[in-house]
Every structure is written in structure tokens, then in C-alpha cells.
């Protein structure tokens, strides 16, 4: 089994699902001839003519059309070119897609996937670097997935396409080509809603997803050389959150650190920290710590500013040390 990167894993998932089920189609800006600005859909238009559709430059229209299509027996995959540009579609996602099953008392379903490349560290400046999960992981009726490895990305995307609910599928841009891994040939799935212990440990638990998962792994390897055993839990799905796995880990290690790239205040880390604080209170030997992006509007373009914004393995290792020493 050869190694592939995340971008290829995602392309394979779409390709195989389009081959498997004629109802699957892709709608987004530049997804056709151009194969998407990141080349995720490259080659798919030739294989599936009429089912890879270049949309007008209008995100609300893209998601809105997919919401409609999902109600007429198709399985749409909407591509948002950069997660930052999902904002015009907020109404269609939050007020429509997420509420259609509930508001119709279970009559209609909404088998919709919205793919959105997010995250920074790629010199994308304020509007091509954002993390958007906090806005959507708050929304009942939506599922929010954020894989960190090719295996998970492929297996989770297939699950998302088959799922009868709207799934926001977050792909960290910096991991697209950076992160490689072995992916089996068989038609497997990774279930939505299950966290995964990517590195078992004894002294403290770290919770992360996407690019930060890898930075946490790196920091954990460093800490191991210093005699601290860090458990790294890949959340993989943010909604529904695998609270069982989170609490089980903290109850064992008694210390917890939550890491995300998104702005700290009001970020999704607050939810995780609050859950731990409430439901593992008696097990905690230290305050639940959070490490997030700073509370500035977004990541600037200039390298020194971008570096100052991004959580790094070094900053994470420092937080781990502080927590271990508590």
C-alpha cells in the first residue's frame, strides 16, 4: 500500500463514491476543468461528466442549490473554495441545511456535504487562513468533521457522503500535501463521531484536530524525551463530540490541554474545557488549559505576524510542560 497525502485521499473518497452511487455530484467554483484551486477534484469532470459542476461565484447560491438537490434524491458535495468564503452561505447552512430535518419533524432529510479548506500557516493572510469550526460546531442539526490524516480523511468523507445529515467537512490546507500516510485499498469507512487516541500516554491528555494534531504529536514526542508521557487524542469529529473518549482520557491522566488554531475566546476549545471541568472535576489535578490562536481578527500576511499567530509545536510543548509541572 503506497503512501498518499490528504488531498489525494479526499480525491479518492469523492471518486470512489461517485463511482459507487450515481446520485453523488460536486458543485463549486472552479471544480470542473480547473479541478479546484487545490486540484482536489482534478480529473473528476472527465470521469463523471455532468456531475462535476462549475458554479457561479456565489456561496449562498451554491449551498442553497445543494440543499434543494439533497431534497430531490441526490447526494451533493458543495465545495467552498476557502473556508473564509463560507460566510455568505452562513444563512443557508445554519438556518436551512441544519434545520430541515428538525423543522419538518423528520419528514425531509438533508444528505449534504460541504467541503471547506481551512486553516493557516500557508501565507494566506486574513482571508485565506481562517478556522471556522466554532461557528458551526455550535449548531444542532449539523455535523462537523475535521480529519488530520489521509486514512481518516478518506474514511470520514465517505461516511459523510452517505450520511443523511448535513456534514461540514473541514480540510486543513496546510496538511493537504504535508501529511502523508498509508491508506488501504478496500472500501472502508471511519465513523463520524468517534475520537481516536493517536498517541497513548500517562501524564496528561491533549485534545486537537487537523494540523494541530500533528503539532501536538510533535510536541508530545519532544516531551517524551523529557520524561513526560503525553496522550494525544484526535477529536476528528467536533459535532457530535465524542465526550466519552475525552472524559475517559482525562479521568486516566488527570490533566488536560486543548489546542486549536482558531481564536481562543469563544473557540470550540471552551466547550471541551467546560465539559471536562464539569464532568471530570474530581479527577483533575490541574486546571484544564487551552492553547488557541490569539484574539486578533485573523492571521496576517507578513511572515513575522503569521508566525506570531500560529500555535507551533514549540508553543504547545511549552504549554505541556507547564501543565505537567502543575
Amino acid at each position, binding site marked *: 500500500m503506497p503512501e498518499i497525502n490528504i488531498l489525494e485521499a479526499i480525491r479518492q473518497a469523492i471518486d470512489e463514491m461517485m463511482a459507487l452511487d450515481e446520485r453523488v455530484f460536486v458543485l463549486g467554483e472552479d471544480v470542473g476543468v480547473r479541478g479546484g484551486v487545490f486540484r482536489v477534484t482534478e480529473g473528476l469532470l472527465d470521469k463523471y461528466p455532468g456531475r462535476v459542476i462549475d458554479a457561479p461565484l456565489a456561496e449562498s447560491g451554491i449551498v*442553497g442549490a445543494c440543499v*434543494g438537490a439533497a431534497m430531490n434524491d441526490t447526494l451533493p458535495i458543495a465545495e467552498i473554495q476557502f473556508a473564509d468564503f463560507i460566510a455568505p452561505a452562513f444563512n443557508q447552512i445554519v438556518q436551512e441545511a441544519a434545520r430541515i430535518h428538525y423543522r419538518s*419533524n423528520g419528514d425531509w432529510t438533508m444528505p449534504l456535504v460541504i467541503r471547506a479548506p481551512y486553516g493557516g500557516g500557508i501565507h494566506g493572510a486574513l482571508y485565506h487562513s481562517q478556522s471556522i469550526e466554532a461557528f458551526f460546531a455550535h449548531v444542532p442539526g449539523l455535523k462537523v468533521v475535521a480529519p488530520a490524516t489521509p486514512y481518516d480523511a478518506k474514511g470520514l468523507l465517505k461516511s459523510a457522503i452517505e450520511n443523511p*445529515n448535513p456534514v461540514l467537512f473541514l480540510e486543513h490546507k496546510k496538511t493537504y500535501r504535508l501529511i502523508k500516510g498509508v491508506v488501504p485499498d478496500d472500501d472502508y469507512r471511519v465513523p463520524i463521531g468517534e475520537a481516536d487516541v493517536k498517541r497513548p500516554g500517562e501524564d496528561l491528555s491533549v485534545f486537537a484536530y487537523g494540523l494541530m494534531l500533528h503539532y501536538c504529536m510533535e510536541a508530545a514526542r519532544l516531551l517524551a524525551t523529557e520524561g513526560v508521557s503525553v496522550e494525544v487524542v484526535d477529536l476528528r469529529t467536533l459535532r457530535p463530540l465524542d465526550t466519552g473518549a475525552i472524559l475517559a482520557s482525562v479521568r486516566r491522566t488527570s490533566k488536560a490541554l486543548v489546542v486549536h488554531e482558531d481564536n481562543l475566546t469563544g473557540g470550540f476549545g471552551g466547550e471541551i474545557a467546560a465539559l471536562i471541568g464539569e464532568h471530570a472535576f474530581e479527577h483533575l489535578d490541574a486546571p484544564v488549559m487551552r492553547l488557541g490562536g490569539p484574539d486578533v481578527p485573523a492571521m496576517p500576511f507578513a511572515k513575522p505576524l503569521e508566525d506570531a499567530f500560529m500555535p507551533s509545536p514549540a508553543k504547545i510543548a511549552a504549554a505541556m510542560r507547564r501543565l505537567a509541572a502543575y
Partner: protein
Amino acid sequence: MAVSMKNTSQGVGSAANTDIAPAVMRDMFRSMLLARALDERMWLLNRAGKAPFVISCQGHEAAQVGAAFALDHTKDFTLPYYRGLGTVLVMGMTPAEVMLALFARAADPSSGGRQMPAHYSSRRLRIVTQSSPVGTQIPHAAGIALAEQIRGGDAVAWTSFGEGTTSQGDFHEGINFAAVHQLPVIFQCENNEYAISVPQKMQMAVKSVAERGAAYGIPGVSVDGTDVLAMYEATRRAVERARAGDGPTLIEARVVRLTAHSSDDNDRAYRSQQELRAMRQHDPIARFATYLHEHDLISEDEERDMRQVIAAEVDSATDLAERAPLPEPETLYDHVYAP
């Protein structure tokens, strides 16, 4: 491309040159009467403190009934907005179902009592669930039609909205999408000249919403929406175009809003007595009644019988719905996700 249909003077007679069978015309009339009777009953129930919220189709009945009669009830999709009582009755929703929603009963097929009344939905009838933020259904209609095109079917997606709603970005994005892909959609704008209190001239700088069709390269047709036969004809042509693969049509139905915006509104704050009086001259039901009688398509007795049957229907729908149980509190947690 805006085509204004001849508006017959004083809103009487019909501009349509039509070969609709008399029995069908009587069916249309019946649907309009039923919509009106239900609507009026809802107001009575509201005034009696039994229904906290009512929003009306009164004045829009001809536009809705005429259009819905031109659709294929076995396969077409409708995405009516909150005034679409006439639409959903023609598409197959029953008076009892409408009343179940008014009283927020567990058996309300639209939402199980979760949504406000007039947020119609029935998957079985392909009446697509609506929200309150206006205009979101317009891209949905385009998407339903896109799916139809992908799947190789020939169903049409029909959606309605007010003229105020044409100011929303989703109106623009939805119609543009449908136009680019020549999708089988009919966009019906029911122009009653007000968005709550905001008059059309504060909403747009054009005289007719139909003028907007040209911006998308699709036909924009302005129809006297108080003329049920004209509405039927205009919609029939749009359906033909759509099924033939010639793309969407924007139909402006010029209607009157005979009530306040909703039971929470008082339109005398922004409409003069004189204006209200003038508007009432355009009641689509009175108009069609006159037409039917003048053309000997219905007799006084037939009309009276029809109205009696309808009144009984409304009574029994109301009774049934009032007696139906409210949802159980625990059901709050149902259907957040599909299994």
C-alpha cells in the same frame, strides 16, 4: 424581455384567452373559496384567542390557485412561501392538515407543531419545508431542478415569494443559477406592493418585478394576479418551457394584500382608508365569481352549495384539529439528526 399582460379594466373579466374546461374552472373557484374560507376562519380563531398567529393568503388566491392548476400534482415540486395556502390546497394538503398547523398540533404534517403556521411542508406532496428567513427557498428550487436535470427527470420546481423578498441576495443567486443551467424552475413573485409596511418604491426602483428577468436572460412576465385564468395560462406556458428544457421563467403576479401583514400587524398605521378601499375592489374571488356567472359557468345555486360544503369542511377541519393533541414535551429532542 418583460411582457406585461393586458390588465383588463377594473379587474373584472379575464385577460386569458383560454380553453379551460368549465369543470376545471369550477374546481379553481372551489379552491379559491376554500382558501379564503380557511383563512377567514383562522382570523376568527385568532381574534378568539385560540390561534396565536395568522398570516394570510387573502387577495393572493387567484395567483396561487391559477398557477398550481398548471402544475403536475404527481411529480412537480412546490416551494410556496407563507402566503401559499392556495398553493398547498391545490397540491393536495387538506384543510384539516392546515388547521393542525394553526393549532401547533403533534399531527401537523408540516412540522409537528414546531414551526409557525403557514410554513407548509409535505414530503409526500413534494411541498418543500420552508423557513422564516425569506428567500432561502429560491436557491432550493434551483437545486431541486438541478437534481432533476442530473437524474434525467422532467419534474418542475415552482416557488413563490413576495416582491420584498426580491431584494435578498438569495433571489439573485437562485435565479441566476437556474438561468445559467437552464433549469426547469418557475419563480412566482406575488407582488402585493408591500413588505410589511415598506412600499414597493422603497424596495426597488423598477415598476415591475418582471423587469428583473432580463438581468438573468430569462423571460419575465407580469400578470394580473387577481385573474386566475391569466395566471393559469402564464404558468402553463412557463411549465411547457421548463419541461422542454428551455429554462426558468420569472412570473410577477400583481396581487393585493387584503389583510394586515399578519395578525401581529396593524396596516392602518401605514395604509390609508382610501387605499384600503381601492384595494378591496380587486378581490380575486369576487372577480372570478362575476366572470363565472357572466359566462354562465356556474349558477347561483351551485355557488351557494359549494360555499356550504366548504363551510362544513372548514368546521370539521377546525374541530378535528382543535381536538388533536399537542406534541409531548419529550418530543422536543426528536429528529435533530436523521438516523
